[in-house]
């Protein structure tokens, strides 16, 4: 691309979270006329189309937007999933473990054990369907109580919670842990 204006438009379109109107694009450069902006838009669009790019400039509801070409969408989504197996973070695992063994219990109690705020972790465990609100505690503020779900049991191939090793059995269990499927 040759025109400085087209480069500026590219940067602006790239940085914006939403489509950008021609008026907004014109506002980027005080000295640019709307005709010049229109020409720069055409230049950018033709550059993407003619010079072998993975993105294109499209006019969508309300303005212009750089979008990835649809033929790459599938490969990108597949790679994103492959690259990110949905593993739980250490923080999530520890929170889940506390809930599994102490349920029903409230957030404050979990935070006391883990020593950090767990609001975000609770939300993500809840979104994944591994924990649920089982009731409210008595007392100040009547805090929500959390417990594990049926999906939690399924995830670990457990028939019921009592199949989890007791704390005093853990030392042994940890040494002989078998893959999830074979634990009974």
């Amino acid at each position, binding site marked *: 691309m040759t025109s400085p204006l087209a480069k500026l438009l590219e940067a602006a379109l790239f940085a914006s979270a939403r489509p950008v109107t021609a008026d907004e694009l014109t506002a980027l450069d005080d000295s640019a006329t709307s005709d010049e902006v229109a020409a720069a838009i055409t230049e950018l669009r033709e550059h993407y189309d003619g010079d072998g790019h993975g993105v294109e400039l499209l006019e969508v509801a309300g303005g212009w937007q750089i979008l990835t070409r649809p033929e790459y969408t599938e490969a990108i989504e597949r790679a994103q999933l492959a690259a990110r197996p949905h593993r739980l973070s250490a923080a999530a695992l520890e929170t889940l473990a506390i809930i599994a063994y102490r349920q029903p219990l409230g957030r404050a109690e979990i935070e006391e054990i883990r020593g950090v705020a767990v609001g975000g972790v609770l939300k993500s465990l809840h979104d994944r369907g591994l924990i649920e609100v089982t009731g409210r505690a008595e007392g100040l503020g009547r805090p929500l109580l959390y417990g594990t779900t049926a999906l939690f049991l399924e995830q670990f191939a457990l028939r019921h919670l009592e199949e989890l090793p007791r704390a005093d059995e*853990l030392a042994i269990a940890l040494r002989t842990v078998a893959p999830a499927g074979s634990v009974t």
Partner: protein
Amino acid sequence: MVAEKMTFVAPPDGSVAHGTFVVELTHFSGPLDLLLSLIRDEQIDIRDIPIARIAEQFLARISTLELDEAAEYLEMAARLLRIKAQMLLPRNENDEAWEDPRAELVRRLLEYQQMREIVDVLDIRAEARRNRFARAFLPEQPAPPAAPLALSLGELLNAVDRIIRAVRTPSMHDVIPRALDVDGAMNTVRGMMAAHANARWTDLLAPSSEPWEVLSLLLALLELARRGEIRLAQPRPFANVEIARDVAASEAA
């Protein structure tokens, strides 16, 4: 926390904008920063600080800064005065064992100064990055977790282990936080046995029973069997437990 009681003053370079992320106490990020600034202003060798003079200036500054509530600044002031007093103690010129009372302070100041050098590097870096935008528009994420959750029991148990080791007084033994109600469960079983000669485990337990109910029932059955009120049988492992009224016992009762 001290910071909450302080007057909030943005640093002179305007580095704290509105929507402040961390409110600065004063221009200074702490007593060491203030001390370092005094030493710089006075062009003093950090390894040979005239403690009496610096202590005086330090006290003057914290009074003008209205930092009278800042424990950290007061603590440093007290430290400076203590060092000053120690410096005044008479000592033998030839005493090889004499330790400079300023040594620890000097070490901390040097360490702090080095950290400030790193801050300068980070600040330049952060500015460079702030001046570039990443793409803000992101295509809608592919339908929520399409990938199965990769999670094994081993991972969960390791987490439990981490917690147990982390908590100072492990109290994981109380797996079931509710008190068991064995008496209640015994009454339930007796009621069932009064009506039926035979029953099964699953007849006595709702599918949604909580762990404490399961355990209560189990203990109740064992207790009743021990007392000879019922007989328990399980044809094979994991099969439903069969409960039968102990005829001899109930007739005797």
